[in-house]
């Protein structure tokens, strides 16, 4: 209980800091802490394989990519691109409405729960067997999807010649 409160509040505060931070690199660092917090929540829920995967794929892979992107595009004058107050108000109203809706639904879902929680979450072995039997199709689709992403990203990020001034691109 205390563990959940600590980890959940840390995760929530880091997520809030991602939104409120004006320096994009600091946002990236707060996002890192949010993702680590979510991974700790998975360990707390007993889903150890998913927690370790979150750490290795999200924190060790995706976040490194995001921070590289931030550093390669963060010129000094663009670090602090300001949003106008009107956009903030619209955003806060929308996000607040969505949060109220989702929280109400969650509270109603949580009442009258009669089934006991899963005693032991399926481990790595069962996940592996599941991926190769029941969920084989999503697994294969994901493999092809990753191949497409690899080729696409490599093509998009290839070194191109800069177009000359005044020449229309064809």
């Amino acid at each position, binding site marked *: *209980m*205390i*563990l959940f409160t600590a980890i959940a509040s840390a995760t929530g505060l880091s997520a809030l800091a991602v939104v409120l931070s004006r*320096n994009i*690199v*600091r946002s990236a*660092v707060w996002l*890192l802490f949010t993702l*680590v917090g979510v991974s700790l929540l998975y360990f707390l829920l007993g889903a*150890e*394989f998913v927690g*370790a*995967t979150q*750490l*290795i794929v999200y*924190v*060790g*892979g995706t*976040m*490194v990519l995001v*921070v*590289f992107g931030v*550093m390669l595009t963060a010129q000094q004058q663009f670090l602090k691109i300001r949003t106008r107050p009107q956009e903030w108000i619209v955003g806060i109203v929308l996000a607040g409405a969505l949060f109220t809706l989702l929280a109400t639904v969650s509270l109603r879902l949580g009442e009258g729960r009669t089934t006991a929680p899963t005693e032991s979450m399926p*481990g*790595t072995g069962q996940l592996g067997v599941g991926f190769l039997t029941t969920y084989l199709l999503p697994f294969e689709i994901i493999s092809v999807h990753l191949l497409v992403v690899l080729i696409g990203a490599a093509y998009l990020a290839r070194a191109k010649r800069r177009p000359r001034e005044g020449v229309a691109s064809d």
Partner: protein
Amino acid sequence: MKELFSFLPSPFDLLAACLVIGIILISFIAVSGLFFTWLERKVSGRIQDRLGPTRVGKYGLLQSVADAIKLITKEDTSPDVADKFLFKLAPYLALCASFVAFVSLPFGNGIVGHNLNVAAFFILAVLSSEVFGVILAGYASGSKWSLFGGIREAAQVVSYEVPRSMCVLIPVIVAGTLNLNTIGVQQTGFFWQWNLFHDPFTFVAFFIFFIVATASCKRAPFDLAEAESELVAGFHTEYSGIRWSIFFMAEYASMFAVSGAAAILFLGGWHSGLLPFEPSLELGWFGHVLNVVVFVLKGWLLVFVMMWMRWSLPRLRIDQVMMTCLKYFLPISCVLLVGVCLWELFVPTIVGQVWRWASAVVCALGLVVLLVQMLTKALPGPKAGLPGAWEGMPTPLLRAKSA
């Protein structure tokens, strides 16, 4: 360990157990770090035909303590253009990533911070987060050179994670579980039970894993971050005093973590290989102590080999580093993975046993012959003439001979 504190109310006994385990692990990392700094200087000294530290304490053992005192009393500088918060945060991120890996590393039978069922995967995952400290340090130092050093380091570490994960998969396939404690228990007995001798693919996988782990620890010959001739000191140029030493503690901690992982996965972990039984079960608490001592010695031996490699081999350029990873280690790891799977499926048990005994005996004999030769061969005396381009030039010995 939670039971020791059962007199406290419910969440606090877990917290107290965690605190005690954390303190034990941090003390181990700190003492190891002090020992490794002394060892590094002695090993580098001896390889370079000089003595290393000798004055502070017997054999210079207190040199690390003296260094620590000096670093603590240094001025805490940071560049003006640096992002202060990130600058101060980066070393601690690296240290946390290295430290958390120790939580699931078994030092003996059942002597582990938390026995995770996915321990091998967890260690890989956590050590892959260390790259963040490097990137943030490079960026927050506010200088182009640190940023380049940080980005090159991050590219190297992230690329080498792929062959590292595949080489960790190989003993996991042999063992059938990701639980490091179980993998250690499966290697009980004499040294031919170790995973190293299970089949030729795991034998090669050990060496590939060791090299790749050296690369992902940013250790020589892959240490472009500290390429003094090009980048001053790469991502930790602007760090001085205790912040720099935190980076180095993180590096030594992750060196020991990967050495410990290699010891458990391939070299039998806490088993000495000379006893046919599990010491902690037969010999009680003395068995536990023996297990911990054997494991720590194996880890220290592998770290010593990493230091030996650092001072013997020249540094690789960044393009050579990436080419080695992508063109050599990655295909080799894929072939080893396929080989282990085929061996497990098709090779009959008797062939497996014969290979095990044969390779273990050959390796042990080779090691014994090597040691005997090293210890009994006469040391080469001083040469009178100089080799190569300096042929015929006068030296004190030649002058003494002709006089």
